[in-house]
């Protein structure tokens, strides 16, 4: 008898759950993010950080990650009572975390999208942008690849799939091009699409044949082990396992190699700003942290990590 009752109860529960689930269907369901949600005021502009315990949470772009990590480490000595927690996850995740309150600072290697801005405002958050460094994205090939330079148009042709053989861009003896890039959650993916793939033609898109890797390191290691590969990585990730190809800008002229100098003066065509976003104007410990990051000490770390300091 007891068994029957329990089964009956289970069935009833299931039925209720079903009804509840289906009742929610007509509207887009509101899913709470799977992360721990910090309390937030509906008006936004909350005194960010102050009084929350002395922790700053920084989440976002894997490109910005080395800078954020270096800052957090050095800042522990500047302000021992403040701990800075840093996590990666991609630019989109960073802005998402900023909106839902999981992060105090959202890192991004691209500017916030209009759609993200709208959702932030709908949630009562006003994201404020801070340019913390400049970054160049380098085109890299296998060390044995003889390519001496590529034009921006050629790169666009390669990454949109118009061209599939190295001989079609004037490089002989390498064969088929293996196109390597980042996955869609990467800011670098978006920047490269905008600055290279769509350099001349907004309607172009990445070739589906592109290998989508999860990090700058995996792009580098794949290119380093694949003779016919081409990939792109942030300036800070260049090393001698891959060869950097100088790029000829759209308006012609000489090919420019990505270096701190050419990114800083704007002559390298594939460069971008790196951002940290805060909820409203930063105050308290968050402001102090960002001010320190923009100071000479913080910007020196930016350079040490292989990025280009602001000013």
């Amino acid at each position, binding site marked *: 008898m*007891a*068994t029957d009752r*329990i*089964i009956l109860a*289970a069935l009833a*529960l*299931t039925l209720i*759950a*079903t009804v509840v*689930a*289906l009742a*929610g*269907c007509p509207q*887009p*369901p*509101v*899913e709470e*993010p799977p992360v721990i949600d910090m309390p937030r005021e509906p008006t936004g502009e909350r005194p960010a950080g102050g009084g929350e315990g002395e922790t700053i949470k920084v989440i976002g772009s894997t490109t910005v990650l080395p800078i954020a990590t270096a800052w957090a480490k050095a800042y522990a000595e500047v302000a021992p009572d403040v701990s800075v927690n840093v996590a990666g*996850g*991609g*630019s*989109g*995740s960073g802005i*998402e975390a900023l909106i839902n309150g999981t992060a105090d600072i959202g890192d991004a290697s691209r500017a916030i999208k209009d*759609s*993200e801005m709208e*959702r932030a405002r709908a949630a009562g958050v006003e994201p404020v942008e801070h340019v913390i460094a400049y970054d160049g994205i380098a085109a890299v090939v296998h060390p044995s690849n003889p390519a001496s330079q590529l034009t921006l148009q050629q790169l666009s042709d390669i990454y949109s799939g118009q061209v599939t053989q190295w001989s079609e861009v004037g490089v002989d003896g390498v*064969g*088929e091009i*293996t196109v*390597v890039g980042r*996955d*869609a*959650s*990467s800011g670098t993916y978006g920047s490269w699409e905008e600055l290279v793939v769509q350099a001349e033609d907004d309607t172009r*898109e990445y070739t*589906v*044949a*592109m*290998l*989508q*890797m*999860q990090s700058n390191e*995996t792009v580098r*290691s*794949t290119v380093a*082990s*694949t003779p*016919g*590969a081409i990939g792109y990585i942030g300036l800070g990730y260049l090393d001698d396992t891959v060869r950097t190809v100088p790029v000829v800008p759209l308006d012609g002229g000489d090919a420019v190699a990505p270096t701190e100098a050419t990114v800083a003066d704007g002559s390298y065509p594939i460069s971008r700003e790196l951002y940290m976003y805060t909820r409203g104007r930063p105050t308290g410990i968050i402001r102090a942290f960002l001010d320190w990051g923009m100071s000479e000490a913080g910007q020196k770390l930016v350079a040490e990590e292989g990025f280009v300091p602001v000013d």
Partner: protein
Amino acid sequence: MKKRVSRVWEWGIERLIQIAGILGIILVILIFFFLLRNSLPILRDFALADLLAGREWRPVREPPRFGMLPLILGSLYVTAGALVISIPLGVATAIFIAEIAPPRAREILKPAVELIAAVPSVVLGFIGLMVVGPWFARSFDDIPVGSFAALGSIMLAFMALPTIVSICEDALYSVPRALVNSSLALGATRWQTITRALLPAARSGLIAACLLGLGRAIGETMTVLMVTGNAAVIPRGLMGFLRPVRTLTATIAAEMGEAAQRSEHFFALFTIGLLLFVITFAVNTIADLIIRRSEKDIA
């Protein structure tokens, strides 16, 4: 008095186990409805045929395209390859452990195979990405890059092995000894006994083991995400095994981080989840039915 306490105790434990079992069923049902609810916005706006047979997966373009065909075929290639490798290997291992190996070898082999299941998938993925893949690319001219479908298959075969071996073994043990002994007594060799008496008798159990291995392989995420290259191309012919592909699971893992909550992309990823759920559910149900049949056969 003592007897009564122990009876109450026993009753309590029984109910607890019962509740745990029922809870499991409820959770599965809830997960199904959670997936369904989050897939509805996509299922409403796009024709099912366009989703399942669409040739292009471009979730962040305007307008987005959610063609899952390359992903479905990617999963199919990687899983099929994994089964081709793991089924013969798994069944053979199970036969060896159950029938041929001396007791001492069995005592070492069985835990060793089960230990494979304890290797975290991210570790296998890392080994595939950094060691095995580049080695293949260096050694074979037909493989341009060290991330390709068959590499995922090899890694998955390794992961599906413990499942296949354990269940095959159970199936072999459940064959009545009298059957084996009478075959031997009639003068059959050991090989004849295994192929003509033992394997046919354990047939349903073996098939179920392979199906559960299939379920394990198709749902695996981390390893394939790392070693198959994630290019959403439609694989073609046998050469497709040597080219990068992207699976259903890897797509969810790679893109969930970027997909804005409650955007079309977000719901489309849930639709992939629903598809995976339906596939694994079907495979496991069939396996379960076959296991039951085999139990009946033997009884």
